[in-house]
């Protein structure tokens, strides 16, 4: 900021008491002239002073109007001056930069990199950290991990065996669920089967997040019993892209891995946890399931508590 711009800024903020003084001085001059005129007409000194005041009318109102008017005008003029000085400063600066392109590059490139990096970081932070999670009572939703007592390895995915124990014995959670990643093929009439990502979830998983389907219904206890035939919830994106947002999707049967599966409903578009998935199917943890899961611990299970 040049001296000129600084001066203009100071000017704006100093003038208020000066303006008030000037308004008073102007009125005082008028009253003095009026008093002299009345004295010339034969009034006494004190009478002339009182009459001059009477003839003036609303003294306080006039002082207020005068001050407000003048102050607004001065502020406007001062800001115009500030902008003019700033424009001049910018023009001078640009002329200097054009005359010395190497210096301009040294000035501009780090600035550009800094702004770019800042924008990228903030965009990521905004999405990951600042935006609220799209779950009901998100502050009560947690992810659970295992810690291996022997190796000290922390934040390992949970095994179903442990999950079952926690589900059955723990008092801390209003809902608790497990999600197992998998894949499945959507068989279409036109074209080859389309591979889809799948999460198999236990009964408590979606209730723990407080997620409600936007179409149709969520899983009910009977959906988790074996032998019921495949049931599934589909993602909002799959519903839009593959089924054209069909409002009658609930109850429709589709072919998953060449087996019929009934679509129960459509999940909301914000559900991107644990990762984005196309299909959600019920997972029932029978004894067979536990044994087979225990032999393959890595990346088989994740769960949340609410």
């Amino acid at each position, binding site marked *: 900021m040049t001296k000129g711009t600084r001066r203009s800024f100071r000017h704006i903020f100093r003038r208020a008491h000066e303006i008030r003084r000037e308004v008073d001085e102007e009125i005082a001059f008028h009253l003095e*002239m009026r008093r002299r005129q009345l004295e010339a007409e034969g009034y006494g000194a004190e009478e002339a002073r009182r009459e001059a005041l009477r003839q003036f009318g609303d*003294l306080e109102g006039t002082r207020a109007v005068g001050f407000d008017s003048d102050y607004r005008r001065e502020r406007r003029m001062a800001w115009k001056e500030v902008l003019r000085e700033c424009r001049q400063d910018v023009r001078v600066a640009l002329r200097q930069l054009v005359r010395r392109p190497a210096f301009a590059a040294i000035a501009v490139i780090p600035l550009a990199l800094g702004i770019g990096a800042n924008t990228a970081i903030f965009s990521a932070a905004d999405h990951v950290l600042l935006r609220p999670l799209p779950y009901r009572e998100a502050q009560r939703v947690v992810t659970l991990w295992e810690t291996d007592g022997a190796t000290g390895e922390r934040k390992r995915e949970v095994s179903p065996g442990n999950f079952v124990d926690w589900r059955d014995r723990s008092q801390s959670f209003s809902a608790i669920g497990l999600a197992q990643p998998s894949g499945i093929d959507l068989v279409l009439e036109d074209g080859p089967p389309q591979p889809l990502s799948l999460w198999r979830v236990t009964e408590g998983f979606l209730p723990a997040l407080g997620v409600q389907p936007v179409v149709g219904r969520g899983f009910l206890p009977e959906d988790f019993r074996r032998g019921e035939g495949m049931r599934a919830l589909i993602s909002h994106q799959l519903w839009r892209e593959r089924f054209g947002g069909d409002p009658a999707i609930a109850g429709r049967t589709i072919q998953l891995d060449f087996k019929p599966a009934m679509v129960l409903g459509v999940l909301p578009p914000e559900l991107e946890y644990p990762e984005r998935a196309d299909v959600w199917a019920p997972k029932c943890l029978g004894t067979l399931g536990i044994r087979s899961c225990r032999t393959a611990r890595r990346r088989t299970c994740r769960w949340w508590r609410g």
Partner: protein
Amino acid sequence: MIEPTTQLLRGTLHVLILKTLTPEPLHGYAIATRIAERTGGVVSIDDGALYQALHRMQERGWVDSEWGHGETGKRARFYSITDEGLRRLHLETASWVRYAEAVMKVLNPPAAVGGLTR
């Protein structure tokens, strides 16, 4: 003495002030005195109303002001009309004259004259 209490008169006040300032810059007291003289004492303005009008007109850019020295030797603010003020004066004068003519037509209808044919 006519008391300036109506909206109409406030608009007229601007015109009177602008016209009074056309020949030369004047301070507020001189403006008040000159208007009273020119109207033969018929129109005399509340001093406070005059100064409020002057400040408002300055804010709108119709008049400008500069500090100088008055007859008493003390500092006084002298007002002068601006280009915008002159434009305003011509507009308002034309409008005022039209208005006055219209009112006069109602108050003083032209007499009907007819020549008798012999």
